[in-house]
């Protein structure tokens, strides 16, 4: 089954361990990773796509999209405001990565949490990935070992969100242009 996952960690270092573990699971043929990115929310509530291993030219492309992505993973309530917030701020900042998504507001946060439980709190980091998995145990077990909490939404459900493909989100793929694809397959 094709899923978007969000794995929440309390610090960025652990999120990178999670990212590497995810690609290792791919190398072990337990899952197939189609793309992955690390997202961080600082103590002021600003979201940013971490540039450590995301290609710098892509990671700083534009603020549009990351609010939409996080919102989409949080559920329909988060999707609408996440997309709108991301588009507005991306346009206003002329391509700076990082934005304050409205999905972080307390009321929206509660609504999103009620639907899926996915919330990225201040100071936390998340691995966001598009994966194919025949069973959920490999990712759940490995991420639990690393202290991560896994949330899932089926890709088909995310893409059924009514705003998907609108002018607010100009890409045909949620992780684009933020995804990290390893330069070499991790054998």
């Amino acid at each position: 089954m094709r899923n978007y996952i969000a794995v929440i960690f309390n610090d960025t270092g652990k999120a990178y361990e999670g990212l590497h573990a995810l690609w290792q699971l791919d190398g072990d043929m337990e899952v197939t990773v189609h793309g992955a990115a690390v997202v961080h929310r600082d103590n002021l509530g600003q979201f940013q796509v971490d540039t450590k291993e995301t290609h710098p030219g892509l990671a700083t492309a534009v603020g549009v999209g990351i609010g939409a992505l996080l919102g989409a993973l949080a559920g329909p309530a988060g999707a609408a405001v996440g997309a709108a917030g991301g588009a507005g701020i991306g346009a206003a900042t002329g391509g700076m990565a990082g934005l304050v998504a409205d999905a972080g507001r307390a009321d929206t946060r509660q609504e999103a949490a009620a639907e899926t439980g996915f919330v990225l709190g201040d100071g936390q980091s998340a691995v966001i990935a598009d994966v194919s998995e025949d069973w959920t145990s490999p990712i759940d077990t490995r991420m639990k070992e690393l202290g991560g909490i896994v949330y899932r939404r089926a890709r088909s459900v995310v893409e059924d969100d009514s705003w998907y493909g609108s002018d607010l989100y100009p890409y045909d793929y949620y992780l684009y242009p933020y995804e990290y694809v390893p330069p070499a397959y991790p054998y």
Partner: protein
Amino acid sequence: MGKIDTNIKDALDNVRAAAQGLHGAISDAAAKRGGATKADLEAFAQKAKAVADSAKGSLNAQNEAAKKHLADAVTHLEATQKHAVEAAKSSGQAFQTSIKKTLADARASVQKISEAVAAKRSAMFKKTK
């Protein structure tokens, strides 16, 4: 339960690794100061052709779902080659447009090969259950 033998990685995994490497190299070149050089672009065109040939070579060994994704990937790889050749011969706005198309098709090929890998693994998983 359902664990797949990790020793049976095959040509498809190698094709995926090669396509990921190609996409990474193109995005690195596109992002660098001064942009991709003519030599870079000629190398990308050759690599795209080589990956497309490898993908074609492993088509018949795949199940139907994987075969369809892989055939789509070949189309994108051939387009990658074509756009890289065009970029090497152009300048200005036409050059930028060709670079963007080269990158977009390389990325699309990685996605399609990834989907082929997932289809193949899923079929193997069902067999081992």
